[in-house]
């Protein structure tokens, strides 16, 4: 399959007309521009995080760091329980993503099958729930009445199936030709086997996307941790991050602490914390990414 795509590339390269060149140039310029406007603010945060705190406060940091030091990272890392929360977040993300992906697939596959009797009704029942924001209190009541509070289940079960992602997965499954099902039936396979042996291997890109979406969603979520956990030993990392990042905005904190204004944490510390919390996702992403590269599935679709 790799041969296939490289051949295609060569082919197009050979006969590059002026029109093609313009097209490539437009694409290149657009993407370089997009990368620049995305990178600069991030670069800015990075140089702030390694600069002298007062220089940052004075707004002197623009293009390069001043008074380079790692104190912000030191403070951020010695900050109460960052490592502990980090561990928690990893745990919640792995368990939560696993459950969510399995549940979503279990839901999406039957609904992708046109011959399923009552398919429209089931889809309705499920999509219906998407339009209700029942609010924090209602969700809290449900979790609390199931006695899930202070357990990992409170964080991973309530959001186990996102209707949005389920529908995306369903659409992915639907794009697989019906002929495959039929021939498999003729071979005597049942739906579970077809799902396991044919559908899943063909849907790697879709599943990788959904895994990534769930993982990032769970990693970034702070509301469930806030509401359903009372014990700070179990807090996910995002709760701490928000506390640090929000510490200077009046919207978030209580009137007492705003009025008392104990030393505000510097911008450099905030940015350092952002980098620490984002790093894991940056590391994980390339693994999911390889499924998005064009041509990853060519061979299997044909087979």
């Amino acid at each position, binding site marked *: 399959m790799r041969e296939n795509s490289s051949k295609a590339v060569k082919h197009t390269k050979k006969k590059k007309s002026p029109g093609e060149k313009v097209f490539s140039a437009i*694409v290149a310029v657009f*993407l370089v521009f997009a990368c620049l406007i995305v990178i600069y603010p991030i670069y800015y945060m990075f140089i702030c995080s390694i600069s002298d705190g007062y220089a940052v406060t004075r707004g002197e940091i623009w293009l390069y760091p001043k008074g380079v030091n790692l104190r912000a990272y030191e403070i951020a890392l010695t900050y109460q329980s960052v490592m502990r929360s980090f561990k928690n977040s990893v745990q919640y993300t792995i368990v939560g993503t696993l459950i969510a992906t399995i549940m979503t697939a279990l839901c999406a596959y039957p609904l992708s099958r046109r011959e399923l009797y009552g398919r429209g009704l089931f889809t309705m029942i499920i999509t219906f729930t998407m*339009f209700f924001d029942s609010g924090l209190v*209602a969700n809290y009541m449900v979790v609390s009445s199931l006695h899930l509070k202070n357990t990992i289940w409170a964080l991973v079960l309530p959001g186990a199936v996102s209707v949005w992602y389920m529908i995306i997965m369903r659409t992915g499954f639907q794009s697989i030709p019906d002929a495959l099902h039929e021939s498999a039936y003729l071979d005597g396979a049942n739906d579970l086997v077809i799902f396991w042996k044919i559908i899943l291997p063909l849907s790697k890109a879709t599943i990788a996307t959904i895994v990534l979406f769930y993982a990032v969603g769970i990693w970034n979520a702070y509301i469930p941790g806030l509401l359903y956990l009372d014990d700070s030993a179990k807090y996910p990392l995002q709760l701490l991050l928000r506390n640090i990042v929000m510490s200077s905005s009046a919207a978030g904190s209580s009137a007492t602490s705003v009025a008392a204004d104990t030393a505000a944490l510097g911008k450099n510390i905030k940015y350092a914390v952002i980098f620490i919390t984002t790093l894991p996702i940056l590391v994980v992403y390339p693994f999911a990414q390889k499924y998005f590269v064009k041509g990853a599935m060519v061979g299997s679709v044909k087979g």
Partner: protein
Amino acid sequence: MPVKAQKKDTWKHVRRKLWKSRYLYLMLLIPLVYFFIFKYGSIGWLAIAFKNFNAKAGLWKSKWVGVKYFEMFLNDPYFFTVLKNTIFISLWSLVFYFPVPIILALMINEVKGTKKKKFVQTVTYLPYFISTVVVCNLAMYIFATDGIINDVVVKVFGGTATSFMSDPNWFRPIYVITEIWQQAGWGSIIYLAALSGVDQDLYEAASIDGASRWKQVLHISIPGIAPIISIQFLLTMGRMLNVGYEKILLLYTGATYSTADIISTYVYRRGLIDANYSYGAAISIFQAVFSLILICIANKAADKIGATSLW
């Protein structure tokens, strides 16, 4: 007698269908249990919209107030301002934000060379991980009267500085710009995944036929991801009224209320002051009904033009 026989027949037919899909139902059972417990469980709590909710007394024993809270916001002249603003913000996002991830994905797809492609992808999705608080801070920085944009306007073009952040006409553009900056790269992932599923032979065949790359994008890539676009569009329509408050709270000022104040921020302000959960629930129900109607219409329309529909 013949009628009965026919009925029996249909039932038999159905039963056969059910039996044939038995494994599918088995699979579906687990998510259904989940939806009933967690989703319908909490939707049931929306009944507090008809009650004067008192947690100590519980849902059942709270005082019944009928449609008082519905009347309250429907009679509130300000409610229509926020309803209008909500719809406008959604429309702006739909027109200006929605196509961006698609275009981005198509462009990334045109990049030759795996390394370059991966680099562009990784970079563009990064902002998604920066918390909204920080994004809004950065936005204020950039759009401030002494910020970069005004610097360029004043120094390069010799114009006068505008205070973008306190001009109601600029609120929606700024909202959408930050949205694009933060979300577009991430949003493109879904289209990239769909693009990776497009049969490569089609491109090859097309280029042998002499189709330009632009033509290939038009006739192969876009039709390839059309189902996903259609679904995303429908879902976005369905969430039209559910614009989150977090970002708006951080970006708006009194001066921009006239365009920036939306249902969720209004509810947030009211909720914060008198913690009126019944009022919030009433608005939730209103939003849900509105969304359902909207999505049903959109879904019908999608069906009509032959695009992929939700059900």
